[in-house]
């Protein structure tokens, strides 16, 4: 399989995406924004939860996917962890939403060949990781149950989400390798 992201002769970073791929990523971008953006308007329905039919009554600290994106900074000190959250969580949410927004904007560009600036690449890396964290946590992925989830019947949403997750992994790995080569 060719690398998803690649560099042109003149050093520009490019990804080729067809319309279906673009629309999948646009959808994920919108969902990540809904999921993480600071919520000033009360209880919006969680679209990632809707996507696989999970009860979204859970509040933010209880939802494992959101807890994975916005983890506690202290393991054994709840007061310190809450203080840290009060000071940093909003900014963390805004950073993640901004990455997703940037990706959404890039995906609006026409054509299959999309060129990314350095800053856009950083947003893509963050966004792909956040998307994988949210989906991976939602489908209950562990170090050793990948094959088990992949073998679930098609009716089970987790099987399809795992395919999507694997594709995101492939995209992220490809972009990370370009950057590791740059740094080394």
């Amino acid at each position, binding site marked *: 399989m060719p690398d998803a992201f690649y560099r042109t002769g003149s050093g520009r970073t490019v990804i080729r995406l067809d319309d279906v791929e673009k629309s999948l990523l646009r959808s994920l971008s919108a969902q990540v924004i809904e999921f993480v953006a600071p919520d000033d308007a009360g209880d919006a329905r969680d679209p990632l939860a809707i996507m696989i039919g999970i009860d979204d009554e859970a509040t933010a600290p209880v939802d494992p996917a959101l807890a994975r994106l916005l983890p506690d900074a202290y393991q*054994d000190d709840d007061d310190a962890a809450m203080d840290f959250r009060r000071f940093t969580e909003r900014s963390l949410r805004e950073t993640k939403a901004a990455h997703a927004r940037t990706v959404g904007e890039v995906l609006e560009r026409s054509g299959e060949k999309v060129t990314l600036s350095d800053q856009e690449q950083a947003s893509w890396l963050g966004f792909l*990781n956040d998307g*994988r964290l949210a989906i991976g946590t939602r489908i209950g992925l562990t170090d050793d149950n990948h094959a088990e989830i992949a073998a679930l019947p098609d009716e089970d949403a987790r099987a399809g989400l795992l395919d999507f997750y694997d594709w995101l992994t492939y995209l992220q*790995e490809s972009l990370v390798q370009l950057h*590791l080569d740059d*740094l080394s």
Partner: protein
Amino acid sequence: MRVRIAGFGRSERFAGIADVMLSSVRDNGRMSIAPSERTALSEETVTERPWVTLVWNDPINLMSYVTYVFMTYFKFDRAKAELLMLDVHEKGRATVSNGTREAMEIDVAAMHSYGLWATLQKDD
């Protein structure tokens, strides 16, 4: 008092951790060679600043991505970044920086923005 740094068997593996993000922020993007707030190799410094940032293993983050984050944020070279990444992967966690509590909170917030699972605590 000798303070053990979790995840590090030998002090030389620890030596390069001094040059990290805060120094580049203070020096307006240029990496500092002078000891940063996280230089904690002397016993006195360690005693005064007994806080560490831990990065924990999870089943989702890519090994390559964790290496990339360590190289990008902490300015580790690839060999050091990969050693720490393997510690995370194989031992379940690694100490990636130490210093004042405030400095560690900045590091933890940065790790969270990259999507790594990080906590800070007093060194044990």
